[in-house]
């Protein structure tokens, strides 16, 4: 069965610090990869997605993620975080037709 592992459950950063959230998945075939974000009091929103092509994908609000097939990874990055990036971030993989498998999430708190 597919699984998604997010390495850190809680991350605390100061504003302007760089961010990297780890995501690894277990599936040997073709996958589609996603990062979703849930801001406090809001619903899950798509941050970025990878289907094919350039393994470095750019999303909204300055986020990017790199798909490294050999490492089964899809890490999320942002060069300089803002207080408004405080949220919970979920990595998800689709490899089975019609469902997403989510990681447990990483809660990011940015100190102003």
């Amino acid at each position: 069965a597919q699984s998604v592992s997010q390495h850190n459950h809680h991350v605390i950063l100061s504003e302007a610090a760089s961010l990297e959230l780890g995501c690894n998945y277990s599936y040997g075939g073709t996958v589609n990869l996603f990062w979703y974000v849930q801001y406090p009091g809001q619903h899950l929103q798509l941050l970025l997605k990878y289907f094919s092509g350039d393994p470095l994908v750019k999303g909204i609000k300055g986020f990017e993620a790199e798909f490294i097939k050999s490492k089964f990874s899809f890490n999320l990055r942002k060069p300089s975080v803002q207080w408004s990036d405080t949220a919970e971030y979920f990595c998800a993989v689709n490899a089975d037709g019609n469902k997403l498998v989510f990681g447990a999430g990483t809660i990011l708190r940015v100190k102003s």
Partner: protein
Amino acid sequence: DAGVTQSPTHLIKTRGQHVTLRCSPISGHKSVSWYQQVLGQGPQFIFQYYEKEERGRGNFPDRFSARQFPNYSSELNVNALLLGDSALYLCASSFYRAYSSGANVLTFGAGSRLTVL
């Protein structure tokens, strides 16, 4: 454009009762999926419906059932509620059934928070 709408937003039930949660997809979306998000965990896939037929089912007991109506709205039903069913139930819609197209992504609603006492 209205997003995915879910009702009710919050509800409290007691063990053994049943519950019905409702979802209206984005206009034009034909696929509706249901996810359960327990506190501290990521969402878990329960069902997908496409064109009114069940197209996928996650690892949930038969107490969970769903259906999709001709207008593509959907209901999730849970019978014989257990304490462990307390969770945020998310509905998501998409245009297509599968993810072969980069344009086909899930859009989530705000969820229905169910508390079972």
